[in-house]
């Protein structure tokens, strides 16, 4: 209210309940006070308002308080909510899994693995043909040739990671993207995820150094350890 604006008698009377409750601004309160001081009828009506205020407070206070059940229900629901949010944050949706499968990086690795298989198959066939020609056994050469194919498909270095509870899904995604890492499995018991930290097979010291780097980002990662 502008201090130059004068309130009408009706306005002043309308404001009495708020004046009694002490919720008018300073200018309005001062004007109501001035009017009360020089208008006995308004002062009488203000006394009625104060009676109403007193009884309304007593009536509400007599309603008591809720039982502990309300609080228990609330915090149980919050705990449940937290669990759902955590699960949703770390479980990629079907769409995300499909998108990840068809990502350029995955496709490139699939193509490379397929090329390795083709080359190895060619080698196996050639060797089998040579052995057959030389009268050798087939079985040992097949086992020897197939082993590198399996290793080729599981190329990569991995770490077990538990993310910090305060890290958001966006933080985790950015953290992994920045390092070219990806969650490949999880959550496992204890909230652990198997994360591919490098696409090639790293030496033990290299992997240990990478794991230390992960652990150093303690706002995102609360635990990291090298794994197979």
């Amino acid at each position, binding site marked *: 209210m502008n201090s130059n604006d004068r309130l009408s008698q009706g306005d002043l009377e309308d404001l009495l309940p708020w004046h009694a409750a002490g919720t008018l601004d300073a200018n309005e309160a001062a004007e109501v006070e001035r009017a009360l001081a020089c208008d006995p009828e308004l002062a009488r009506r203000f006394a009625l308002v104060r009676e109403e205020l007193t009884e309304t407070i007593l009536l509400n206070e007599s309603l008591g308080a809720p039982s502990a059940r309300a609080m228990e229900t*609330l915090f149980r629901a919050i705990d449940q909510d937290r669990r759902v949010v955590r699960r949703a944050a770390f479980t990629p949706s079907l769409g995300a899994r499909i998108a990840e499968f068809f990502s350029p990086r995955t496709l490139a690795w699939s193509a490379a693995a397929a090329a390795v298989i083709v080359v190895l198959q060619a080698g196996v066939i050639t060797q089998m043909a040579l052995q057959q020609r030389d009268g050798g056994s087939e079985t040992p050469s097949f086992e020897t040739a197939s082993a590198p194919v399996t290793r080729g498909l599981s190329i990569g270095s991995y770490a077990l990671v538990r993310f910090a509870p305060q890290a958001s899904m966006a933080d985790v995604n950015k953290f992994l993207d920045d390092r070219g890492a990806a969650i490949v499995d999880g959550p496992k018991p204890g909230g652990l995820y198997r994360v591919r930290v490098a696409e090639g097979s790293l030496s033990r010291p290299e992997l240990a150094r990478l794991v230390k780097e992960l652990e150093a980002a303690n706002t995102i990662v609360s635990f990291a350890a090298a794994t197979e």
Partner: protein
Amino acid sequence: MQVLFARHHVRVYRFVLRIVRNEASAEDLISEVFLDVWRQADRFEGRSAVSTWLLAIARFKALSSMRRKPDEELDEEAAGAIEDTSDTPEVSLQKKDKSGLLRKCLEQLSREHREVIDLVYYHEKSIEEVAEIVGIPEATVKTRMFYARKKLSELLKAAGLDRGWP
């Protein structure tokens, strides 16, 4: 959340209880109110007091609950018309007491009138805050308060207490 709950839950409960008039329902509703607050905390813009925000959510939930279970609230007109047969000599004596009579008449007001009176007198809400909680213009808040008080005076007069206003 525990601090917020500890600070506000009793007042929110009483506000809701005055609307739904059922203690169990009021307890369920305040759990829902605070759960909503926990879920939507980022939407609180800080333009109003937290208690105003809480009461607005509580009011919405209480009224939605009433719409789902319309039988739980007596029709206001019908409730006012029901003859009070519980008057023992003790109660009759209490009725002569101005304070008791005033409280009884406050209970008889319509939900809308009870609500505005509670918000102004008990919850200490300004005109702007009442407007925000109830979702009506500020001028309507003043008008509604005037008619709530007028109705209260009429009820008191009918009960034998003429306050000489309005």
